């Protein structure tokens, strides 16, 4: 029963997808361009009086071309989609792990010490809602390097969910377990690593999963701003050319890579999950 339900659901999904793409394709056919163009029409790029969204066949064709040669490098402003995604993933991961290095220890501190929680809370509350891109002009000015600046922006946007989730997870560890550790006369450091860390791990990883999602959202915008390399730059460059086919293709790629990053972290989360 379950098996056949899955099969049927998949079938319905496929039918809906095909119907959607079919309507999209048919609604966006360019008029027949067989008749001769006047000189004015040639200079205007054809007699067609209306710009339209490209049909899915064009997007699939482009995707095939781009993905069959994803790592070409034709100069500093023209690189394959694989290289662009690589740059973006590299920036996201660098910023993300740097943020983890800072956020998790501070989160521990806040979670374990009510004093530090009260002392640091005002700063966190003020800094957390700032849009990461608002830091960009300041970062460019101070860091004086666009590459490092975009990593900094990723760092600053991924730090908050991790910090807050870590603090929450650490503070929420059952008191009994900490008391057991105390009766066994474990040092505070040993308690933190052997009792609190495993207990809080699922919450911490949930924070990390939220962070990487946000980081991936932000990198596209940051790269559109500073340019150079990355998937954000790719979107911007194709937007300049008003090439919607490439824009749609890159939107799909952004979605796929974002999903893969999320899947990777959810796999890690499953590893540290436990039943009470």
């Amino acid at each position, binding site marked *: 029963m379950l098996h056949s339900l899955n099969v049927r659901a998949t079938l319905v999904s496929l039918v809906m997808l095909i119907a959607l793409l079919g309507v999209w394709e048919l609604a966006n056919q360019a008029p027949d361009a067989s008749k001769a163009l006047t*000189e*004015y029409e*040639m*200079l*205007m*790029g054809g007699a067609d*009086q*209306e*710009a339209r969204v490209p049909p899915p066949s064009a997007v699939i064709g482009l995707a095939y071309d781009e993905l069959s040669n994803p790592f070409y490098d*034709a*100069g*500093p*402003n*023209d690189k394959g989609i694989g290289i662009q995604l690589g740059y973006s993933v590299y920036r996201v991961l660098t910023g993300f792990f740097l943020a983890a290095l800072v956020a998790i220890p501070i989160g521990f501190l806040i979670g374990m010490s009510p004093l530090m929680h009260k002392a640091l809370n005002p700063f966190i509350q003020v800094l957390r809602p700032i849009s990461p891109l608002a830091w960009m*002009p300041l970062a*460019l*000015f101070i860091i*004086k*390097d*666009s590459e490092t600046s975009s990593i900094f922006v990723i760092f600053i946007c991924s730090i908050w969910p991790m910090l807050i989730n870590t603090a929450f997870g650490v503070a929420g560890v059952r008191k009994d377990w900490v008391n057991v550790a105390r009766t066994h006369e474990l040092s505070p450091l040993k308690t933190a690593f052997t009792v609190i860390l495993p207990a809080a791990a699922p919450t911490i990883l949930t924070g990390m999963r939220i962070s990487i999602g946000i980081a991936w959202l932000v990198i596209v915008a940051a790269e*559109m*701003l*500073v*340019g*150079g390399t990355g998937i954000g730059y790719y979107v*911007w*460059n*194709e*937007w*300049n*050319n*008003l090439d919607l086919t490439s824009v749609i293709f890159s939107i799909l790629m952004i979605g796929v890579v974002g999903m893969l990053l999320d899947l990777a972290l959810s796999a890690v989360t499953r590893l540290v999950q436990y039943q009470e």
Partner: protein
Amino acid sequence: MSFKSLGNPFDGESDLTHGPSCACPSCACAHEQAQRGTEYSASELTARLEQAAFEGTGQPRYQAAAELPVQQPTHSDIRKAQDTNTLESPEDVMDRVVESAIVRALFGQNDASRRAFMKTIGGGTMAAVLGSLFPMEAAKAAIKDTLGKPEKTKLKIGFVPITCATPIIMSHPMGFYQKYGLDVDVIKTAGWAVARDKSLSGEYDASHMLTPMPLAMSMGAGSTAMPFRMPLVENINGQAIVLHVKHKDKRDPKQWKGFKFGVPFDYSMHNFLLRYYVAEFGLDPDKDIQIRVVPPPEMVANLRAGNLDGYLSPDPFNQRAVWEKVGFLHTLTKDIWEGHPCCAFACSEKFTTELPNTYGALMKALVDATAYSSKAENRAEISKAIAPKNYLNQPEAVIAQVLTGKYADGLGNVKNDPERIDFDPFPWHSMGVWILTQMKRWGYISGDVNYKGIAEEVYLASDARRIMNDLGYSAPDHTYEKYTIMGKEFDADKAEEYVNSFAIKRT
């Protein structure tokens, strides 16, 4: 072969003017030819002359010079002076050119008296005396600075993807940078603010900028103050006012009240020309219309979305709006001010002083490229070179319409205007003064402005002239001229009166 060997200026036997009694290798060859009655073939002649120049052979009468009495062999110049005519490397040749120029100048270009003097006193003595009186080594170093090997060959140059930057961009695919020994990466930049910040931070060695930007940056208007220099203008003309197709019947600017216009940057000719244009029609650009800063590549998308009613922006985005059927060309800026400057090549003052050879080589590449792009017959080829993804990333048909001047105006007409965009590298000081008057007029700068002083400090007209002359292009010998903009005359000598003469202004 028009090349004549460089005679040793300290040698009384050699004739620097290559007269009939000259014994230098090229003349000696000529004498021999006359005697033999046959001519050397070109390759034979070149071989002989090269041998003579670099090995010091093939010049029998020079032996006498080597036997000149040596009196004070202390200075490095003296060694060279006694060496017959041996020039071992291009560096030596350059040294010889400098020595020769100085010695000839000393004798008022009179070679007969120089030779008589050298024979009497001896070349070695003269070289020693001269070396102690005149900073010969420094003079040689100064000359080599502008001609020697670039100190840094790997450069990053920023550009915003517009046709104004044509010389900067095309120099890459068409090999102009390579020709002058540079390995340049041209980096596409999202907008002027980023180009400015990346230049200020040193991430770019030099950048494509708008002509008002180096002035503003040097004065600290709109950014931190840092001395920037603008040795070259890229293009003149080449911008346009584009309106949304729904405004086809509103061709009189008086009907534009409430319009939203885009310009690429505050400190741009686009902003100043648009303000000037609407103000001449009685509209106050700060009250009657709204002017927004939009990076050029985003203009068309904003026009289509209805965020803008029109814009004054660089091509290809004017022509692209026509191509996309969302806009039409209201007027070319050429018809507002014929020959106005627009974009420029700019770098920090530090770059010009710390890397003089790189700076010189870069200027040569760009002056060469600018001259190449100013020729109408090359425009189609250039359009093809700069259209790909790595550079402008635009349909070639759009770029060709801009560069060749044969274009559709979006109103159903095909127009032909070869001067739609042109390229001229000379940074007129009067242009700088005009820009400063507009910055003052619209309140971007305030107080007493030393118009000419700033323009002359930032616009390096003498460098541009030197490089243009070196490459054999004619450069103007003055740096100020008068302009007539929409019927109103501008004279750089009366800048402050000019600012005050406008009815609509912020001062």
